[in-house]
């Protein structure tokens, strides 16, 4: 018996660690294409850029952990999966046999396709190596242009501004984080970034990139010592497709996170699965999703199979603002706000019909934790209760 895990990110690591925690005794091989031991990505766009955290703080476990737990770390890229003979082929020419295969291949950054993107001042942030380069290049930079007003872009903007750089954020949509939060939250973050001195350009079209500048709209130029693009990711589904497994916006898995090949699972950023919290299949990019799916698959491998049912949650830290999100707002038809954005502490409750489907909390951690439970238990909560700060959310759970 042997488990092979492709992908050494948060999900791959957690699968291996949870298998051992569940008592799995056979061979575990974790294949990753980055140097070093598996690490967590959230600090890379936050404390790491500010120099508050170093590489060792990002590492999930020290090297000795893998030896002690008999988890073999293999450095390399997988060239192909041979499902008939149950082997993965590495670029090096080696083969590894599996009984169960877990695809935790993650995602890669979407690349800009504009003129000038080959300039060496254009950077992306996903890996520790990329974060280290941005951190080093920020030292000498004065003007920083961030392309994309999503989580990564805004976290980088906040870090660069905290380091006293001149920062411009270029967002194509009419508001920040438009894909994931309600307008009231977008507006709150625009005001906060602008108050810190960030130039936030909405509905802005990037036309091209010059050696030390970016070109916007008609003849508008912005100086740019450094251009950092955070314009989303593309799931790594190619290996699965080449092995004849179905994939859409992610490798297709059932509610047990299994592909149609019962020996192969897919988890984390690369997997698209049915969700109890959405009306369609979803592919989520988050630590929570990677960790909980890994744990679910580890249990299934040791014989305790159960449908994946964890409540999705996310977070982003920008300056001293802590935004925590629970549930999935997709398809919401109305929102109510608890608390006042002007106090810098408020939560937004998203309803789909009668049902509470998501809650975003700004500096209100107790609301967030209550929301995880309310959404998980499918508790009935009406908008009036949600808005009423005298109504204790926890009492709704009883």
């Amino acid at each position, binding site marked *: 018996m042997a488990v092979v895990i492709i992908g050494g990110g948060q999900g791959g690591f957690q699968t291996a660690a949870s298998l051992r925690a569940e008592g799995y005794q056979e061979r575990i091989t974790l294949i990753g294409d980055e140097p070093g031991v598996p690490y*967590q990505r*959230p*600090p890379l766009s936050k404390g790491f850029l500010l120099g508050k955290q170093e590489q*060792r*703080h*990002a*590492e*999930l*476990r*020290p090297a*000795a*952990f893998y030896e*002690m737990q008999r988890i073999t770390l293999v450095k390399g890229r997988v060239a192909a999966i041979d499902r008939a003979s149950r082997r993965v082929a590495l670029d090096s020419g080696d083969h590894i046999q599996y009984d169960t295969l877990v695809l935790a291949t993650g995602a890669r950054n979407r690349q800009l396709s504009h003129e000038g993107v080959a300039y060496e001042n254009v950077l992306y942030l996903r890996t520790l190596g990329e974060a280290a380069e941005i951190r080093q290049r920020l030292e000498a930079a004065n003007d920083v242009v961030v392309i994309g007003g999503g989580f990564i872009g805004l976290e980088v903007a906040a870090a660069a501004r905290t380091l006293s750089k001149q920062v411009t954020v270029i967002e194509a949509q009419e508001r920040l984080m438009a894909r994931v939060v309600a307008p009231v939250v977008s507006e709150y973050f625009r005001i906060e970034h602008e108050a810190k001195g960030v130039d936030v350009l909405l509905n802005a079209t990037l036309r091209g990139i010059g050696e030390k500048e970016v070109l916007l709209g008609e003849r508008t130029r912005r100086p740019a010592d450094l251009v950092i693009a955070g314009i989303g990711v593309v799931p790594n589904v190619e290996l699965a497709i080449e092995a004849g497994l179905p994939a859409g916006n992610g490798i297709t898995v059932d509610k047990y996170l299994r592909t149609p090949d019962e020996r192969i699972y897919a988890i984390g950023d690369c997997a698209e699965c049915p969700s109890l919290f959405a009306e369609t299949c979803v592919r989520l990019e988050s*630590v*929570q999703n990677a*960790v909980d799916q890994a744990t679910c698959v580890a249990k299934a491998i040791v014989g305790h199979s159960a449908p994946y049912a964890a409540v999705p*949650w996310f*977070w982003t830290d920008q300056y001293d603002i*802590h935004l*925590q999100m629970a549930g999935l707002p997709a398809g919401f038809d109305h929102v109510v706000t608890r608390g006042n954005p002007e106090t810098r502490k408020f939560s937004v409750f998203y309803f789909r019909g009668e049902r509470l489907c998501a809650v975003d909390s700004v*500096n209100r*951690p*107790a609301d*967030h*934790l209550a929301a995880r439970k309310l959404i998980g238990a499918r508790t009935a909560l009406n908008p009036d209760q949600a808005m009423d700060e005298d109504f204790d959310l926890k009492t709704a759970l009883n």
Partner: protein
Amino acid sequence: MPKITYISDAGVSRTIDVPVGDTVMEGAVQNGVDGIVAECGGNCQCATCHVYVEEKFLPLLDPIGEDQDAMLDTTASPRKSNSRLSCQIHVKPELDGLVVHTPPTQQ
């Protein structure tokens, strides 16, 4: 380096040198101390690095922040007055000799 002692629910004790500035959680995870899971990686998001701090050290700790306070209400083992999230305890010279007890379960 300050020495931090971790005592498991079963009474197994380990003492580790933890660099100033690191957290008590990091000291545990980097040295393979069982009983601290730290699923979220130290971001005050998951309450799986819960510890009980020996009473005499409590006055040396920073006050419990709002995030930690909310998170402590969700721990898998009962919250007590000396409950803390170890990812929120930054090691400083005065904490040399700190003793924390890990709870029976974190999840």
